[in-house]
């Protein structure tokens, strides 16, 4: 009798593992638990939280930040969609998945529909290459094509596609690819922003330098996540490639004091006022490092 039920027990286990992931974990996201040491002084308070997330920079956020600088569209800065054939390893594909999503959103914010279609195809190739086709509903990318003239809808579809891919990679225990995609998207955003200072600029230059330097805050979070996965050879290689940028960012000190919130009647929003001092002297060094890293990602 017990021999009859042995296969049943195995079947049961298999069924549970396959169809019931919530037996072991209730939720996952591309945001990972954080080491909160150093965030203020409230460690006791922090330790009571059951779930802690870092909201890492997405290609969508980076593109909006760049668009909000008020500088005209610069297509020559984007990675050529025809470069997809160069990316053969999963790591290269994940990095350039992030790069292409940033490029697509950037083009989309400037309503460059033909360019967007070319980037959509490039993203599709990266999705297929990474084996994520099952995660990204095919209709999602088709929907993107149908809604290419509707900016709000297009951004929503892209956010959905992006989060589906991140969730899929995490569920497949391929966290390093999620991180690689994040890094790729972030570096592309930094590359576009920092390159804008070379051309078409006079008045906005300080704003760009400020945005690039302020990304230290984001980078610190990204670096912490990467450090937690440094046992992975691809992540270790990526971290080594970015070590020059770490050194440059380490020279930046951002200090805030006297936070205060007031309501702006005109904008109908709350304003977080603070005295901040940031040293932007290292901008040239950060820019140089970003140019090198980005060159290595897309070559």
């Amino acid at each position, binding site marked *: 009798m017990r021999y009859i039920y042995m296969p*049943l027990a195995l*079947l*049961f286990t298999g*069924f*549970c593992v396959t*169809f*019931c*992931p*919530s037996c072991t*974990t*209730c*939720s996952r*996201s*591309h*945001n990972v638990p954080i080491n*909160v040491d150093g*965030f*203020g002084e*409230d460690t006791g308070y*922090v330790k*009571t*939280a*059951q*779930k*802690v*997330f*870092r*909201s890492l*920079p*997405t290609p*969508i*956020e980076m593109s909006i*930040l760049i*668009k*909000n600088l008020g500088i005209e569209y610069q297509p020559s800065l984007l990675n050529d969609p025809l470069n997809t054939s160069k990316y053969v390893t999963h790591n290269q594909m994940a990095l350039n998945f992030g790069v292409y999503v940033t490029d697509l959103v950037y083009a989309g*914010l400037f309503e460059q529909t033909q360019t967007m279609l070319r980037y959509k195809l490039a993203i599709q190739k990266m999705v297929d290459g990474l084996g994520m086709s099952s995660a990204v509903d095919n209709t999602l990318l088709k929907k993107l094509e149908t809604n290419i003239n509707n900016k*709000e809808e297009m*951004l*929503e579809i892209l*956010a959905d596609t*992006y*989060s589906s891919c991140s*969730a899929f990679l995490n569920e497949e225990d391929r966290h390093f690819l999620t991180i690689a995609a994040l890094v790729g998207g972030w570096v592309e955003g930094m590359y576009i922003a920092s390159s804008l200072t070379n051309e078409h600029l006079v008045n906005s230059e300080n*704003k760009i330098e*400020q945005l690039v330097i*302020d990304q230290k*805050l984001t980078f610190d*979070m990204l670096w912490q996540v990467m450090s937690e996965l440094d046992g992975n050879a691809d992540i270790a290689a990526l971290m080594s490639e970015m070590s020059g940028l770490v050194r440059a960012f380490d020279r930046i000190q*951002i200090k*805030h004091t006297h*936070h205060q*919130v007031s309501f*702006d009647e005109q*904008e109908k*929003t*709350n304003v*977080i006022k*603070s*005295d*901040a001092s940031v040293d932007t002297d290292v901008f040239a060094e950060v820019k140089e490092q970003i140019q090198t890293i980005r060159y290595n990602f897309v070559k």
Partner: protein
Amino acid sequence: MRHILAITLLSVIVAAVCPPDGTAQCKVFVKGACIPVLNPYIHDGSYQAAIMSEGEEAEVYKTVFAGQQYRLYVCVDQVMPDVEFVVSDIHRNILFDSRKNGNVRQWDFRPDASQQIKVTVRIPVRKENNENPTIGCVGVFFGLKEK
């Protein structure tokens, strides 16, 4: 035949014991109920949602940039009690407390300097229901305004 019956029985037990996948459930909920509330702000594409139960607390760390207009929205499943959230800066200064602002679930803000903020979300415990805490999807979302 007995095997088929046994497998069917086991499948029913598994389905009853194990709730549907929380991630998938949360994603459907988030898409329909949370993201649209960010409008006219553009969702930043970041997905911070999890299944939480009464009495639990979650924290989200986020970098916000100078001069950008943000909408923070804390989204909670209808089955859950009212959610409370506090936004604080790196020095533990409280920037916003939903309990002191009519238990709203969103906060629009613009930092005049780039900085990291922390959003602490708490699901209060319903006293009458302590032995069977309600569980549901809770998400923290950010939108940015395009200039």
